[in-house]
């Protein structure tokens, strides 16, 4: 199987879907002539032309709304945010228009749009440019939220997102674009709402998604040296959430740590923590632990920046805590 980068996997997904369906268009800042600020859309402008790969001014609220209108009227736009930090300017359009249009029109409209782009902590960028936004979006009924951790998952999930008739928030870890992984040449899609066990284990479940999967797998390896057998569950999609796989894994291991690089307060992590305590209370041998970003805006200073995020150390500590060692 070819080994490609996350960037290439996402590009392939868009390319294949654009050639399959001419209603699919891509728009955003620098996506066309510049080939994308992070070069994700490399070559698409040359291939599909300016009618389908569209550079916009820096008007997040405006172009997100335009995408929503076009989707309501029959196109299938992919709207790239240069990073999800700037999607906050479009938050009103995404929440009040994209997410609710179907409901408040009594089911008349479909809003088949994908909002995608880099998300999550980056490096040395300080608080406005380095934050995980998934919890904001996951809060909203009417949106689907996915966050792949491997090139394989990214490609399969993005193809599903583009074919979905609902607004999908597709989150790509800003520091993940050059990560590599196997991606088959033949066509495939990955259904939303299916978590993936990235590592089988019997002693403790670590639940994560997106970029932290890497530190979680490293932690699992470290813990293996101490004879601790970790199961790693990658959510892949946050909304819909694969409750069944989560609960089954916890029922098997009886212990759980959730690793999430967003803030802890009313977050994806805290929701899952509640879900587990509510549905598998009798199976738990220890309270669920969270390892999240510290509850602070991201500092610029690198030492503090690293200290703010989940790390192998913090994960190992949390695992040992739920194991009472």
């Amino acid at each position: 199987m070819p080994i490609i980068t996350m960037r290439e996997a996402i590009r392939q997904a868009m390319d294949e879907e654009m050639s399959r369906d001419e209603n699919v268009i891509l728009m955003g800042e620098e996506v066309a002539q510049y080939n994308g600020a992070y070069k994700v859309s490399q070559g698409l402008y040359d291939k599909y032309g300016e009618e389908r790969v569209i550079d916009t001014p820096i008007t997040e609220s405006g172009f997100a709304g335009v995408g929503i209108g076009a989707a309501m009227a029959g196109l299938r736009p992919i709207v790239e945010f240069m990073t999800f930090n700037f999607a906050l300017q479009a938050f009103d359009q995404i929440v009040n228009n994209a997410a609710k249009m179907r409901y408040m029109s009594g089911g008349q409209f479909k809003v088949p749009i994908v909002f995608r782009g880099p998300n999550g902590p980056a490096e040395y960028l300080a608080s406005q440019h380095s934050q995980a936004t998934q919890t904001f979006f996951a809060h909203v009924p009417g949106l689907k939220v996915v966050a792949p951790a491997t090139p394989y998952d990214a490609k399969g999930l993005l193809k599903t997102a583009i074919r979905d008739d609902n607004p999908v928030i597709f989150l790509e870890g800003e520091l993940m674009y050059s990560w590599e992984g196997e991606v088959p040449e033949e066509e495939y899609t990955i259904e939303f709402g299916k978590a993936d066990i990235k590592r089988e284990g019997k002693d403790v479940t670590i639940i994560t998604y997106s970029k932290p999967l890497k530190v979680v797998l490293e932690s699992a390896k470290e813990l293996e040296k101490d004879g601790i057998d970790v199961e790693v569950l990658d959510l892949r999609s946050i909304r819909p959430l694969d409750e069944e796989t989560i609960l089954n894994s916890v029922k098997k291991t009886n212990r759980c740590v959730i690793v999430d690089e967003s803030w802890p307060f009313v977050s994806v992590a805290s929701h899952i923590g509640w879900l587990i305590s509510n549905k598998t209370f009798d199976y738990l041998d220890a309270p669920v632990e969270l390892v999240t970003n510290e509850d602070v805006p991201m500092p610029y200073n690198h030492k503090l920046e690293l200290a703010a995020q989940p790390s192998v150390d913090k994960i190992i500590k949390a695992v040992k805590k739920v194991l009472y060692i």
Partner: protein
Amino acid sequence: MKDLKNYDTKLLKDLLFKMLLIRRFEEKAAQAYGLKKIGGFLHLYIGEEAVAVGSISNLDMTKDYVAAAYRDHGHALATGLDPNSLMAELYGKITGCSKGKGGSMHFFDYKKHFFGGNGIVGAQIPVATGIGLKIKYNKEDGVVLCYFGDGAIHQGAFHESLNLAKIWNLPVVYICENNHYGMGTDYRRVSAIDDFSIMADSYAMNGKQVNGMNVLEVYEATKEAIEIAKNGTPVLLEAKTYRFKGHSMSDPAKYRTKEELEKYKQKDPIISFKELLKENNIISEEDFLEMDKQCKKIAKDAAKFAEESPEPDLDELYTDIYA
């Protein structure tokens, strides 16, 4: 523009000095970035110095205010912030103007009326307008200069702010620094018009286009604008300028031609102003070299200060979240 004889020579030399200081400071910063002592985005202002210096030189920072975006080194230095604290901020040190928590895009100095530093395109425009509201509310004698790029002018925040500033008669001068590109996008590709100053008409304000490569022209236009703004009508200035470097250190700037860049380098605001001062016998080449030496020393000392400054303690992670 007035005859040079009508200017105080101290002012003229000061304008040149400040532009040069910005240039040398940023060259030093770029060098430190190359050595990985500074991380993240570093958006240099090189080429655009005349805009910040020409406009801010009109201000009295005990009464007036400045708000800028992420390309803020020039504005901060022109405002009189300590180069040491700015360089230390780039290094992420506790001695930095934002305690190492902000970095290049987030220079702040509350006491010196420098309100950013903002990484979100256009986000400082309503903030600056709010400062104007405070000045008006307290019946103070002050003005706000608000800087943003050609890329920011299409944001709703800009249009909403101008309307509010006009209906409330706020003392704000909005200065669009049109350096021709928003990242890789030529402003003509994303703008319905190519003279931004006419946008002022939509809000019944004064609008004016100025040559942003000419520090005196910026100085005069801003002086006039401040007068008008203080009398209750906000102003929009569009300063036509050019950035000599890429959008940030990671941008090779392939979207523009070498010829275009060369054309603007011929109009270097520092060199051309120096020549003007020399022609008028206000400075000699030796004076200039001496000035340059001083600026280089300030930049070098700032880097030394930054390097020798301590990192923030780990505890700083949890400070400054709430007042």
